[in-house]
């Protein structure tokens, strides 16, 4: 814990600033909500889908880490755990969506459904009651895995019992499996059904990979800040940043792969029930955002991360990770926002303020959680093994 004392003042400062930003932005949101409630809910959902990616992506990467137990994973394990413990906050922050259902989802408006045969067909799935039952179920599953992983890791810190490592390793597979399953349907519910006529079977993977990539980039930035202090400075080596960089490269490539697959298949089929989703996003200014995402979410970071040098220099790697986080935000905007804007590219000031409001509280919660535990697992027998691998 002594290692933490040294950086606590800085962490406290970040936490206070984040809370301040969150509170101020919340005020802005309130003002915006009175003026333009529909816009508020739309911006809020966009911000929410971004930030929950960090809480859930951490579940994915923790599961992966517990299965393979490499040095890179132990270096960021406590960061991931802190991310994941923000889930209760994110569950709470999901509630405002309840009040904006009709503003967000046209399938929730009875007068629209009454005139639409396809929506009537879908109403067995797309109805408000079932939507919230599913959401509760998703949170329950996520909460279960996240609690187990955090508790066992803490118990091991306290008791030094090696058997917890075995438990953690065993939960990794099911954790990943259930995360992918639930997140797929959550992405159908929360994002895909914004355009309730549109469907794409790969959409779940698009979200899962986006969240995993976002969390990894975030963890890289945090670990880069902590790397030159105790306790990480004693174990972390260039090799681990190299591994993290490679993993980010892999996620970026897979993200591109699923997106290209989705686009190519829908473009080639050119069916009236599928293609409008892309047509809308390829005109009225949205196409420039799309091209930007292709270039800076894939081409540039991919090229940069091919270089061994960039992956082994902590500061460069952290900067690439920062750019990836911004691109995650823009990619989500390109997916979500066109649903609400029929006349081309546009941005409301709430699209900035709402993510800031959620983000302020999220970062404060994250820092608060990070302070609570040692920055490296204390007694995991796999840790020594992993770091001696060099």
């Amino acid at each position, binding site marked *: 814990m002594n290692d933490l004392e040294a950086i606590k003042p800085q962490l406290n400062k970040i936490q206070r600033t984040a809370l301040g930003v969150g509170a101020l932005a919340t005020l802005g949101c309130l003002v915006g909500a009175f003026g333009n409630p529909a816009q508020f809910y739309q911006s809020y959902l966009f911000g929410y889908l971004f930030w929950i990616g960090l809480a859930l992506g951490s579940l994915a990467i923790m599961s992966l880490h517990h299965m393979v137990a490499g040095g890179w994973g132990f270096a960021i394990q406590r960061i991931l755990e802190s991310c994941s413990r923000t889930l209760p906050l994110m569950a709470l922050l999901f509630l405002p969506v309840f009040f904006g259902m009709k503003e967000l989802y046209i399938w929730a408006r009875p007068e629209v459904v009454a005139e639409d045969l*396809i929506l009537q*067909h*879908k109403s067995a799935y797309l109805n408000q009651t079932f939507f919230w039952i599913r959401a509760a179920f998703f949170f329950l599953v996520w909460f279960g895995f996240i609690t187990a992983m955090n508790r066992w890791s803490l118990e091991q810190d306290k008791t030094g019992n090696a058997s917890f490592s075995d438990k953690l390793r065993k939960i990794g597979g099911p954790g990943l499996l259930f995360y992918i399953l639930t997140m797929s349907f959550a992405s159908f519910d929360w994002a895909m059904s914004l355009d309730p006529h549109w469907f794409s*079977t*790969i959409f779940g993977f698009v979200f899962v990979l986006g969240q995993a990539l976002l969390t990894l980039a975030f963890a890289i930035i945090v670990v880069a800040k902590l790397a030159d202090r105790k306790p990480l400075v004693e174990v972390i080596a260039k090799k681990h940043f190299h591994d993290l960089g490679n993993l980010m490269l892999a996620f970026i490539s897979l993200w591109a792969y*699923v997106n290209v*697959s989705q686009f190519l298949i829908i473009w*080639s089929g050119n069916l009236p029930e599928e293609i409008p989703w892309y047509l809308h996003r390829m005109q009225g200014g949205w196409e420039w955002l799309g091209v930007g995402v292709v270039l800076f979410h894939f081409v540039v970071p991919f090229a940069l991360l091919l270089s061994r040098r960039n992956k082994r220099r902590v500061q460069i790697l952290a900067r690439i990770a920062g750019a990836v986080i911004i691109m995650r935000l823009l990619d989500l905007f390109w997916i979500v926002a066109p649903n609400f804007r029929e006349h081309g590219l546009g941005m409301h000031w709430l699209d900035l303020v709402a993510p800031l409001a959620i983000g302020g509280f999220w970062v404060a919660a994250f820092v608060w959680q990070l302070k609570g535990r040692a920055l490296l697992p204390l007694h995991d027998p796999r840790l020594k*093994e992993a770091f001696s*691998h060099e």
Partner: protein
Amino acid sequence: MADQVLDKKEHSHHTGAPLIEPGHSYGSVTDKISSIVLTRKTPVAWFLGFSVAFLLLMVFLGSTAYLLMKGTGIWGLNVPVGWGFAIINFVWWIGIGHAGTLISAILLLLRQEWRTSINRFAEAMTLFAVAAAGMFPLLHMGRPWLFYWLMPYPNTMALWPQFRSPLVWDVFAVSTYATVSLLFWYVGLVPDFATLRDRTKNRWAQISYGILSMGWRGSAIHWHRYETAYLLLAGLATPLVISVHTVVSFDFAMGIIPGWHATIFPPYFVAGAIYAGFAMVLTLSIPLRKIYGLEDFITMRHLKNMAKVMLATGLIVAYGYMIEGFTAWYSGAEYEEFMILNRLTGPYKYVFWSLILCNVAVPQLIWFSKIQNSVVALFVVAMFVNVGMWLERFVIVVTSLHRDFLPSSWDMYSGTIWDWATYIGTIGLFLTLMFLFLRIMPAISIFEMRTLVTDDKKSKAE
């Protein structure tokens, strides 16, 4: 050399099983693997297996000859089902090849040492599977001798292939795949050919292995260049693991046939390919280690790891089935809904439910450690997956086509005796090549196994 012997592998975490049984040295590894080719008497099982395989190869020869005489009319194709066994078998074989590339390239880059004893014959399996796969599009052309028309080249007919067709992409994808796999396999064999050249007493074998080893002397420079080349080839082969089956999935998904046109197809096909491939590696390695007494090299840890990869990829495949079914309903598109109902309850429902049994239900047994530790059980599960993956392609191809948009053109499809003969014949082709490979080449990489014996530091870290 005796002090080289290490038993530290026993500490390996996770499974507790070693990658190479304790008690081996440089010499014993080389002796054991090279003796299979050079000195040991060829086991009776080999002759038995080879005879059966060769017989099946003759079936292939016969059915191909008849096909060339009569044309593709001898197959069971009809009007709604214009793609039958030929594409099913093509995809099945290509898929099987994928495990070889994944084991040799991706696991190498991921520094997974357990790949070492299985990579050589898995790569051979890839090559032979691609050869078997290639037979089907060639034969389905009707005039296979004009295969080069698939290539874009300036010609007097002033015709170019349709570049927007994924079938043309397939030509490039598969031929690249075959070329890189062959190179990768051959480069990996060079140092071992040199070992065989130096050890054999037979003059003819000395000359043959000598030519194949391309003057390998084992100098430091040779090794240095070798390592660089091998790593580069691994980097080249890695995207191929994904690209080939992605393009194969495009053959279906780019069209607008309900049941084919689904965005999940690329990742789900790739996972299915790796799934089928690992099932085949298990199917081959379990008898191989038994017959040649290679349990020291292909240990339980290898079998368990392969089973786990199989389980993971199998779950992705199951995810694909589930999402496809859900979306067919969710889409609200009537043809999509009909297609999925027809699969579940139509005339081919038995094929569909057998596929679910083989690919989704049975492999869940791997969750139990009792199954993981039983060689026989793993072999049985792998056989289920081999069958299941064939059924999967049958379901995708046939149930999507046989009841198309116009009920008056609906028809049933089944393979004729010639379809089956050609299919079984390619199994003969595959097995014959595999048996010949086992007889004349080192089925396990000798020099890479030696690094497992000596790598003191790494084995401690294990």
